[in-house]
């Protein structure tokens, strides 16, 4: 078996008493695109709107769903494996929302950005998807080729919590 390598092999986890930023590797990401009925049939669910997460399914556009589940057959849909295309960075603990607020023009207030929702936005001009996994845990999906750069940007934003 060939050995997989991460875009973040050269970094150390950022761990302080206040905040943790680590890579969260080993996920499967598959994009399914197509008509609602075909997607619903293949995936069992079709999240009602963009920005919510249901059973590991993220609706990223009107006709596209990202699935974090194992790939399935999806007749009449366009399936694109994307597991290598994104690097996942987990940022957790109380200041996580404040750190993210230094990076993206999204309202990360608890009342607005709740668990099981996500936002596609930009950090340092790079497209990212930020998933609120739990109140104080966020997954940032960043394009793999920009991963180190965005890692540096995020951990630098967290300097005050070091």
């Amino acid at each position: 078996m060939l050995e997989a390598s991460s875009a973040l092999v050269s970094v150390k986890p950022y761990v302080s008493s206040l905040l943790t930023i680590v890579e969260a590797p080993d996920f499967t990401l598959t994009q399914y695109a197509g008509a609602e009925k075909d997607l619903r049939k293949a995936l069992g669910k079709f999240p009602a709107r963009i920005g919510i997460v249901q059973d590991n399914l993220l609706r990223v556009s009107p006709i596209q769903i990202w699935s974090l589940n194992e790939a399935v057959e999806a007749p009449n849909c366009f399936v694109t494996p994307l597991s290598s295309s994104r690097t996942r960075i987990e940022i957790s603990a109380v200041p996580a929302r404040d750190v993210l607020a230094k990076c993206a023009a999204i309202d990360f207030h608890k009342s607005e950005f709740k668990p099981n929702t996500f936002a596609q936005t930009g950090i340092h001009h790079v497209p990212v998807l930020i998933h609120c996994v739990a109140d104080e845990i966020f997954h940032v999906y960043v394009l793999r080729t920009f991963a180190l750069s965005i890692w540096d940007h995020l951990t630098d934003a967290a300097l005050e919590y070091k």
Partner: protein
Amino acid sequence: MTAFRRTTKAAHIDRTKPITFTFDGKTLSGFAGDTLASALLANGKTLLGRSFKYHRPRGLIAAGLEEPNALFTTGTDGRTEPNTTATATELVSGITAKSQNAWPSLAFDVMAVNQFLSPIFSAGFYYKTFMGPLKKSWMMYEPIIRKAAGLGVAVPDVDTARYEHRYTFCDVLVIGSGPAGLAAAVTAARSNLRVTLAEQDFELGGSLLSSGNEVLEQWRKTQIAELETHKEARVLKRTTAQGIYDGNLVVLNCIPQNHPAKMILEQCRAKTIIIATGAIERPLVFENNDRPGVMLASAVCTYLNRHSVAPKKRAVIVTNNDSAYTTAFELAEADVAVTVAEQRATLSGDLLAKAAQLGIAIFPSSGIANVIGEKQIRAVRLSGRHAATIECDVLAMSGGWSPVLHLTSHGGIKPKYDEKIAAFVPGGFAPSHYGAGGVNGTFGVLAAIREGETAAHAAFENLVFRKNLEAIELPALRGDRAYAIQPDWTVPEGKHAFVDFQNDVTTKDIKQAHQEGYLSVEHLKRYTTLGMGTDQGKTSNINAIAMMADLRGLPMSAAGTTTFRPPYAPLTIGAIAGRNVGAHFKPKRLSPLHDWHIAHGATFIEAGLWMRAWYYDWAGNSPETAYIKEMELVRGNVGISDVSSLGKIDVQGPDAAEFLNRVYVNGFAKLPVGRARYGVMLNDDGIVLDDGTTSRISHTQFYMTTTTAQAGEVMSWLEYLLQMHWTDLNVHVTSLTDEWGGMAVSGPNARRALQLAFPDVDVTTEALPYMGVMEIELEGVPVRILRLSFSGELAYEVHCSANYTTALWEHILVSADSLGIKPYGLEALASLRIEKGHVAGADLDHRNTLDDLGLGKMAGKEKDYVGKALRFREDCQAPVRWSLVGIECMEDGKKLRGGAILFAASDEIKGHGRGYITSVTWSTELNKFIALALYNGGLKHEGEDIICAFPLKNENVKARIVSPHFIDKAGERLHA
């Protein structure tokens, strides 16, 4: 003999916390709660600077951000900050402040001689003396003038301070924490709205801090305490609202405490904005009104009540309105002898009574004829009926109040003039913006509190939110005094009556501008420099507008104001850059092979956002020579190169072939599965957009590649066509640039290398011909082998998912090690393609047609494609266009250079030439420098001699126009 002293009265300083600082090298001390200005004043420092043009001695005028004179250079080395406003600087331990614009010292300034040259430094002096027909002299004199006139000097050192940005959101943003702002913030916070209160000062309270009134102080403390109990209320001190932009974006710059950043620029998106920025007092204009010790009446009151700094013995007050009497009474109660020169003829009875009770002498219908004392006021001479000379330590002046309406006007709403208070007030408010208190021209404390509350209620309406709210408890005052003012804006006589202190603009300059026809306020500003500089005329604009209006016989409302633009206060450039400096300047894009390249001696080069391996240690340490060895490896044996940065797009769907057939100029409808084709795309205008190779993976799936540079453009373009126009096509596109990595294996031994790497796969020409595509698996990992060549040699591209690209690369290197395979970098890659005559990003200048690049024959004659119609427009078909040619250097030992301007051998070397070099390299095959270029008329000039001019290096090199295909014109090598 100092003119000021500390009193013992309780104020907003903490006498238990002394703080030391230095001013012009001398160590001084103040207290926590002081500003740099109040601490200097308490130390008896009244001479604080020299003026901009005339180097006149200057002292404090104001106590707030509007201060025009007290500007210092603070900090050292890279942390040096010129033009720090002393009145807006919190006194903290270790401040080193230096006065500006004085040499050798403040007290003895050589340039003060300029005072006597003032006739020549009058309005429009730069324009008249040095510009126009004599503009060459400007070049000569500018450095001297810039040295003689000016403010602080920026240092060349890198600013090592850290600056941050943050994005915030709230329901209600309240700007200003005076009585109106506090009331608005508390009211909004009581309904559990997300409230942000921004205050530029380090203490909340605004004008309340200067009042000296116990009742108001209690009220202030109560409101602050309540705000702390509301979880959703954020209170930002030391935070200046710099501007309001579209979409209710307010830019706040905050100086955080106990934080690694010196400053945080906050982009606050507020659903509603309550502007409670108060008002600024105006100076009066009279002879020598700039002498140290002449101050705004409200500033004198602030220093007294907030900082416990009082004039030593005697004060004169000159005013045209009632507000200055607060200062008069407070001074009298602090045992200062007070005389009032009242410009008005009559005064209300209660003021007269209270003045009499406190022993204050009032001279009605009086003004100031002159100020005596140069570096510190000693006395004033009154004008009018009571032309007496009165000794004093301070002259407190009040010309009335100007609402701080900047933020209301940033969106383009012009202020309007209010006769009653002789001031400009907001001309209106944008939807979801509200004003409260002084900014509206409402000057009473109780009235301001009520307006703050009302504004918060109005904001709720906007938020579709209603709740029974407890009213704000009002402080137990007996009611607000009405504000009465009667300004006299006739232009006073005299040579040294200053309107704009910071820019040294006098009444004389305004008269002159008027005489010379610079009548509008915008012209007046540019001609006299009035209202420019770090204070942007906060204290001077209204007086100047009024005088110009008077000279023109216009009402104020017709004169108008200059345009208010952000930032409201000076802002360090570093704050705007934020963390985007140094290594964080822009995001970097790294190949999945990046770590391998680092570990194996690659030197990197930036290509757009990408960091690409430029050349490798094994070939040498110099970019000038290493790539030549790498080229030789590819031409003679086999090399491997990282091509992961290519744009890659998954094109899927039943109509995918039709779609590609439309976007590429050449045919894709009939491309067989397992084959690749080189294609070129045009924009609608017929100009080349991009090129690349696209492979057919299945009947309904294609794997498109684009150039590195245009990947994003192409992706957006395809999405645009599919989503907005060709909605009948069932096609879906997804970027795979990050999902897939790739490498080129090139050279005469490339096939042998693949055979070693994939022994179970048939890669013979029969199984994998030129432009063939093969999908295989390597230990379970899907791999695509595409037989295509950028270098002109026998070559393959091998792609797989990015997680495994490094493993695949290492596998090929290890497997083919016996051949001597080695990596080659971007420089060699680019050089190889130049020899082959392949165009790339550098040669495409977004003005090229297919024919310009010699690709016209590719386009389908019968089929339709994007850009076909406009490709044939007259301009694109002009007989003479800048078209692709090859160039060979004809002079041994000389270089061709990218960007060199091309001339025919007989041309004079002058002007823009006939073309330019777009790519250049040393050719290992031809043993000379070769280049690709765009040349007027293109290959019609093949064989002609030209000159490549590179004026930056003073080089003119002889060269010849040749075919851009320098090697293997028949393509024998790549078909091998």
